[in-house]
């Protein structure tokens, strides 16, 4: 294995174009354990952390640009981002320990393509767009279109994610993410649920998005849960409908971390609670 730390996106594109076994990384928090578990080493490990565009977090013209390799600790430390997108920032702060969060990135979390990735549901409910670079130039793709199954993405050979674009949420809008793990830290989500809720002047939901982690091969957007909410306040009836829709949308598997029945039940519970939390914040004006 070779190690390279290019200084520009163009250099990365060139390295990837010439070598199908090359692989980009930011924190290597998935790559190293996979290598230790016996996965073949890449021919070249391309360190993205020395490209400022990949690690910067900035707000320009009402859009947050989050470098794909920015450590999630940098998101947590960014008060303005946390005010705008508290659910996403909280999700980033759930990924492993402080040690992990100083390396793990949203780009890595997305492209590792684990169904249980904590930050992906929050990216999805906030309609995040991924800027993807490849030999054909750059393109912008909705985040939800990137994972296609466990360990698989829609990225073409030679492509990698450069940054995420998220529009600042409008007023009276906020998001939340909750996950269920057996311990308090250091676990992979058995189920995760993200919600984004906008409230109108009467306290009714005017827009909503709910997405689930670890209940299907990829992140699942639950339009039925959003529909159940829109036009209503986040009251018991609406929340029960959200929970039912989320449980219905879940198509989980039995594995070492949880059972089908448990995941369905908890998907509903977490969806409901995430909506309640997001709506509570939205009712306080959201981030503004």
């Amino acid at each position, binding site marked *: 294995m070779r190690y390279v730390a290019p200084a520009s996106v163009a250099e990365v594109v060139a390295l990837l174009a010439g070598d199908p076994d090359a692989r980009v990384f930011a924190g290597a928090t998935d790559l190293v354990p996979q290598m230790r578990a016996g996965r073949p080493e890449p021919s070249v490990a391309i360190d993205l952390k020395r490209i400022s565009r990949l690690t910067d977090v900035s707000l320009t013209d009402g859009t947050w640009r989050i470098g794909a390799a920015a450590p999630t600790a940098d998101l947590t430390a960014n008060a303005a981002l946390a005010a705008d997108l508290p659910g996403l920032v909280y999700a980033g702060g759930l990924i492993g320990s402080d040690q992990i969060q100083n390396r793990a990135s949203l780009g890595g979390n997305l492209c590792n393509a684990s169904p249980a990735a904590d930050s992906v549901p929050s990216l999805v409910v906030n309609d995040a767009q991924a800027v993807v670079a490849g030999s054909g130039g750059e393109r912008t793709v909705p985040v939800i279109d990137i994972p296609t199954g466990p360990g698989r993405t829609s990225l073409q050979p030679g492509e990698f994610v450069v940054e995420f674009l998220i529009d600042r949420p409008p007023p009276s809008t906020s998001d939340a993410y909750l996950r*269920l793990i057996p311990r*308090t*830290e250091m*676990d992979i989500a*058995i189920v995760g649920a993200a919600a984004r809720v906008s409230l109108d002047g009467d306290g009714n939901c005017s827009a909503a998005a709910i997405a689930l982690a670890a209940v299907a091969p990829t992140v699942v957007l639950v339009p039925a849960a959003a529909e159940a909410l829109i036009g209503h306040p986040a009251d018991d009836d609406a929340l029960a409908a959200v929970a039912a829709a989320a449980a219905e949308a879940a198509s989980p598997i039995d594995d070492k971390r949880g059972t089908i*029945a*448990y995941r369905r*039940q908890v998907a509903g519970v*977490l969806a409901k609670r995430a909506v309640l939390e997001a709506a509570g914040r939205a009712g306080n004006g959201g981030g503004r």
Partner: protein
Amino acid sequence: MTITEQRPGYRYVGTRPVRHDGLDKVVGKARYAADLVLPGMLYGHVLRSPHAHARIVAIDTSAAEAMPGVRAVITGADFGDLPADDPERNMTRNLMARDKVLYEGHAVAAVAATTRRQARDAAEAIEVTYEALPHTLDILEAMEPGAPLLHEDIFTTGLDSEPSEPSNVANRTCYERGDIEQGFAEADVVVEGEFVTKPIHQGYIEPHACVADTGQDGKTVIWCSSQGHFRVRSQTAAMLGWDTSRIKVIPAEIGGGFGGKTTIYLEPLAVELSARAGRPVKMVMSRDEVFRATGPTPGSVIRVKLGATGDGRITAAKAWLAYESGAFPGVWAMLGCMCVVSPYNVENFLIEGYEVVVNKPVNAAYRAPSAPMAAFATDTLVDEIARRLDMDPIDLRLLNCPNKGDQAPYGPKWPLIGLRECLEAIRDSEHYRSRPAPGHGRGVASGFWFNIGEASSATVNLNENGTATVVTGSPDIGGSRASMALMAAEELGIDVHAIQPVVGDTEVVGFTDVTEGSRATFATGMAVVEACRDLKGQLRGRAARMWDCDVDEVEWADGQATHSGGEHEPLALADITAEAGRTGGPLGATASLNARGAGPAFSVQVTDVSVDEETGRVTVERYTTAQDAGTAIHPDYVEGQMQGGVVQGIGWALNEEYIHDADGVMENPGFLDYRIPVASDLPMIETIIVEVPNPNHPYGVRGVGEVGIVPPIPALANAIHDATGARIRELPMSPPRVLDAIMSGNGDGG
């Protein structure tokens, strides 16, 4: 907090000095086995079985031997086979498979090469031809006739008639007293249940590691991480067929053991590789190997039935216990039988236990081995009786509490024990007297562990400047060096930091058994005290020479010699050691002994939990443990043992488990999915040290290392029941299982 019963005042014993080995450990200088580097050192790597059960048809090492950097390759054929009745035979067959592999992770071959990477690549290039065999993973299934057999030569012992067919059941143990039918007939309340637990790993943070340097003289030096370097020596000798005098074992600092480092895994392989390569060989396990190939504590199925009178007296107990011991039998079911009702006086009981082999890693001791699973069953049912009778659970336990002179279920009469005092300490604690917070549930449980004595040696040398060096053979896994120094300080009357406690290798100190069974401070401490008392006699003799008087005129107290007639100024220890060369030479003493009279240990614990009834997540909100230490020599480390044991029990109760797939492959061989508790999972663990001195130890010590792990499982199960009404009888009480119990309305039986 310490609750003390009639113990004398001491000057050093019971104080909390900074431990002697602490500084090296906080600056990163403490040397563990994996930290050792020798010139020319090679790296060893073990090839392990991917199959749970398979016949080894052929092993071809030729490709591996031809690879760059490879200096030696070994397989089971390179070691002699021990006779069938040799007690170490199973150990040797665990270290390197012969004929068959018996679990996924079973060692098949090993390589030494110049770099770690070369060793690993070469190990993977060894071609092993397997013939897969049917395997058995489930304890009850393995007991059935017709189950896949691990061993052709296991015929169940302890049955009423000798079996004609081999089986996976190694032995049946039975303890019986009184008339069980009569006992249940007298009962107004009868409760029963089946309790199931999974294998649990000790989870020490330091993986097994050793370095072996075998010289051309046919001798070898081993540096290793072990709870007992004399056992490393004898077991390594047994596997190699060597005389023990060819082997010197130097104990490195040990990064946790909890019973898991009372046996060996790597050392004979490293010695053999080193002998063949003519170079030192280091072997360090990965975490994955630690989980797959080193000893967990058994999974179990335990059925208990208890009867009690309306006023709470337990009249009868019936227990059926099956422990899975992994690929080779152990003593786990027997120990479970001896513990299952021991915190209670029961006149009528029938206890039977079965030791069952399955295709999983060979079990090793883990902190009060076999007792926690048994306590899970019994103390859950005792809680059920208390609820049925509307009795306080502590009062119920006090009513049935054994005292000195009562007959323990495993036979002998109880010596002086402190269970009653522990129960009273919890009953009187602020925690127990306060009501649980709204929504919280409370659980109580008690636990028993024997504690053991065994052989220990100590040498105490006085230095010319009045300091002392205390050399023992007990690896220090939790602060025992500080305890040795405290006892020596108390005896000699010099400052605890004027004493340097050292763990000696196999060639500098007398034979000492493994640091296990909560014995180091008890047994090795006894040897230290005996050597110090010998020295005090010598010091009086030297003072007599210095004063030119009869030795009977010299008294020793508070670190100085005084003349009974008052004719001489007292001589401090340093005054005497300074003159030692002129009064008869160096001052030193050695004691070697079999420590007798280990004091049984009891712990009583109370916990409050909250349960998220929609997800089944349990949060431990508050925890208090009371434990009889006999005498706490260094209270900080007594508390540390209590707290560590409790938290291991919490992990076992809530989240830890071995998960195997249908092929017998472990699915969670890492700390990500084998979930030991993290700091944010826990509250402070409040401790109450109860001191009912052990009359058989000069300072009243009982071992404190193990019993703390026994009560947490039933305490938490009882608290979850209190919070939710759901009775959980299978571990771990993880969110899915707790939610399932809540939703299916599993309450108390009956």
